[in-house]
């Protein structure tokens, strides 16, 4: 691709019907660009888990993807309650999700660990009462 590609989607709070549509759009764009199935799969998992976090925890927010020749950067930004203990939140099995999320098959405490596992760079910036930003990067040469 000659020019970097930017994709951005608003994600609504508690909308379990539409949740995942933004992630599917990001994934389809990556597939259309001819990236490997491994890269597309990792990016899809990151985006989908991040999108579900916006739906379940963040009070909604924004998913953005920036794709250039070397990498895809995926960001999830919300103005939700923030994460009081990030160390705890990235441990597998820790969750604060409610019944509705569990009924949908989420809230098992695997979201952030799944995001971290599939990213080459994983950064989380959070402030209680102000919101959370998760930034990830996947480099293409690492996963081809």
């Amino acid at each position: 691709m000659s020019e970097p590609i930017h994709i951005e989607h608003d994600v609504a709070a508690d909308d379990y019907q539409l949740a995942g549509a933004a992630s599917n759009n990001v994934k389809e764009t990556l597939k259309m660009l001819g990236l490997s199935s491994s890269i597309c799969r990792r990016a899809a998992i990151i985006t989908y888990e991040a999108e579900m976090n916006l739906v379940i925890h963040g009070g909604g927010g924004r998913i953005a993807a920036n794709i250039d020749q070397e990498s895809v950067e995926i960001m999830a930004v919300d103005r939700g309650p923030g994460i009081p203990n990030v160390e705890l939140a990235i441990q597998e099995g820790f969750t604060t999700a409610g019944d509705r999320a569990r009924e949908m098959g989420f809230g098992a405490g695997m979201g952030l660990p799944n995001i971290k596992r599939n990213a080459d760079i994983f950064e989380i910036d959070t402030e209680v009462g102000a919101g959370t930003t998760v930034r990830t990067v996947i480099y293409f040469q690492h996963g081809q």
Partner: protein
Amino acid sequence: MTLEDIARVVGATSLCGEDKLAAIEVPKAYSCDLMSDVLAFCSPGAMLITGLTNIQIVRTAQMLDIPGVMFVRGKRPQEDTITLASDSGIPLIITQMSMFQVCGMLYAAGIKPCFDVRREN
């Protein structure tokens, strides 16, 4: 085995994508009701066996290019779930059997797990 073979083994019927069942080879399966576990552990090419029927099952299948989904215990998904799967080209099948019975029968028929702990040890 194809999805059509699998459906025959467990007496499953098609909810959508019936015309694709004979053409899709499925070497492995993953059975789970936790979508984050599916995202973490389901291997490429594995089909999903689940007791959940909401629309996020299809979203998860979309993300991982899961070739087909089987619903157990005769739980029929809502129409919006079937519509999204149909639009996405993901076949859905449904059986009256329990997840335990389905897994046992498909394992005996040669379907592999996504990770075989005995082999790794």
